[in-house]
């Protein structure tokens, strides 16, 4: 790098123009290993993993929240998930021998490893938020439900779940962000997806390609987050809630990320 006699400013401009050229060249989007195909691959993987995690983790978390038990587990699973590097877990899964699995659809072994890692990393935000969401239903509302003679199941489905929806959904949204990020990292262990463009570009010193991949990944991440935010607002059964805060009803899409973190620490 030091041997580069080019003025760093010029080099930077070059990289930007090269990246732009790469992105606007349609041939890079088409065909096998084209950006579009990788994008679809990664979206498929992410959605599948999220669906698995939701199907497995959410019912358990919600029911634990209803029972008010297992809070220790629900809170600490987040901490553990945070401490284990995604990259390390992916690497371990890829290197380990899966009995009898050599191909998994079009993705190969790294694909299955990625899928497992993605689903695992989607679990902590889902479980923590799901548990906290049901737990945080005000005690007087619960008592009112009891007083009306509701059974445990009725209380769970008619009172606690509707009130918990916003927080549950913010967990799903967090999980989606997490899954997309993890799916990108999968490329470091030769997994499928867009991250491959990034790693490929960097390992071959084709930085324009690497940066172009990064731009696409980042753009899709932001779009996913925006879409999830819109859906979240649409499913929120208590849309009037924000106006309780002073001033204009701030929507503040940002509040949700911290919400998973806060109950953990405090």
């Amino acid at each position, binding site marked *: *790098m030091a041997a580069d006699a080019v003025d*760093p400013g010029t080099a*930077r401009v070059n*990289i*930007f123009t090269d990246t732009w050229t790469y992105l606007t060249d349609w041939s890079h989007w088409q065909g096998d290993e084209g950006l579009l195909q990788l994008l679809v691959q990664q979206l498929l993987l992410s959605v599948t993993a999220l669906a698995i995690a939701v199907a497995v983790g959410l019912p358990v978390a919600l029911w634990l929240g209803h029972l008010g038990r297992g809070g220790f587990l629900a809170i600490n699973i987040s*901490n553990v998930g*945070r*401490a*284990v*590097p*995604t*990259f*390390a*877990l992916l*690497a*371990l899964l*890829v*290197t380990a021998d899966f009995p009898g699995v050599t191909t998994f659809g079009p993705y190969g072994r790294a694909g299955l490893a990625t899928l497992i890692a993605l689903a695992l990393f989607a679990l902590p935000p889902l479980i923590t938020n799901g548990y906290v969401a049901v737990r945080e239903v005000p005690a007087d509302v619960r008592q009112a439900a009891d007083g009306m003679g509701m059974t445990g199941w009725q209380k769970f489905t008619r009172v606690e779940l509707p009130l918990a929806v916003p927080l549950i959904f913010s967990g799903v949204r967090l999980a989606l*962000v997490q899954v*997309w*990020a*993890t799916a*990108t*990292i999968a*490329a*470091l*262990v*030769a997994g499928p997806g867009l*991250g491959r463009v*990034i*790693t490929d*570009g*960097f390992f071959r010193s084709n*930085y324009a390609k*690497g*940066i172009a*991949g*990064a*731009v696409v*990944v*980042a753009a899709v*991440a*932001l779009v*996913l*987050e925006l879409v999830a935010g819109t859906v979240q607002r649409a499913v929120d059964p208590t849309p009037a809630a924000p106006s309780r805060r002073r*001033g204009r009803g*701030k*929507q*503040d*899409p*940002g*509040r949700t*990320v*911290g919400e998973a*973190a*806060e109950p*953990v*620490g*405090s």
Partner: protein
Amino acid sequence: MTLLAAAAAVGEPSCYSRLTNDWFCVQYVKDRQSEIVDATTQHLQITVEAVLLGVLIAFPLALAARRFPRLESSILGVSTGIYTIPSLALFPLLVPFTGLTATTVIIGLALYALTVLVRSMLEGLRSVPGDVRESATGLGYGPGRLLLKVELPLALPVIMAGLRVATVSTVALTTVGSLVAFGGLGNLIKDGVLTNFRAELLTAAVLCVVLAVLLDAVLVVAQWLLTPWTRGPRA
């Protein structure tokens, strides 16, 4: 019998050779000690610098967000937006500015830490009871002294909670820095994957988790020392 076994052991390839490729291998740790120590040191250094940088940026932002409520949603929105970008994509985006250096990784990680840090600082400062603030003002505390002597100490538990979260996740994320060859233990993990070297891989992964737990413990102790009023006969 024992002699035979010992002889066999000498003749056997070491547990990290290509033939055996064990997951756990003490011999590997002994033989490659310096490499492992170097990687761990780099990991620790990057993590600590990133978190410190994150705190340095987050604190003025939190103060600004508190002082000017109009800024709050944009500050939180932008930091959340950054948080949304996958780490493997954020590092390349910084490369045109900082090159393939440790700085790239440190800045990227600091940006990730921002989300949690700004939030916890805001929450912490807001958790200071209004009457405490009023009494301090009544005692003649100016805004600066009020912040340093009254508000910050009272906000510390919440801020520290955020700092712990940020630190632990930064330790994990540092591994991704191996993309630009500054990933600390991540470099060993990457090498382990490329060469199918299980002992290297698992050792580095375990060290990452150990490092996270250790740093978390350090922060817990620091908080315990910094907030002597929270432990008392009540507990």
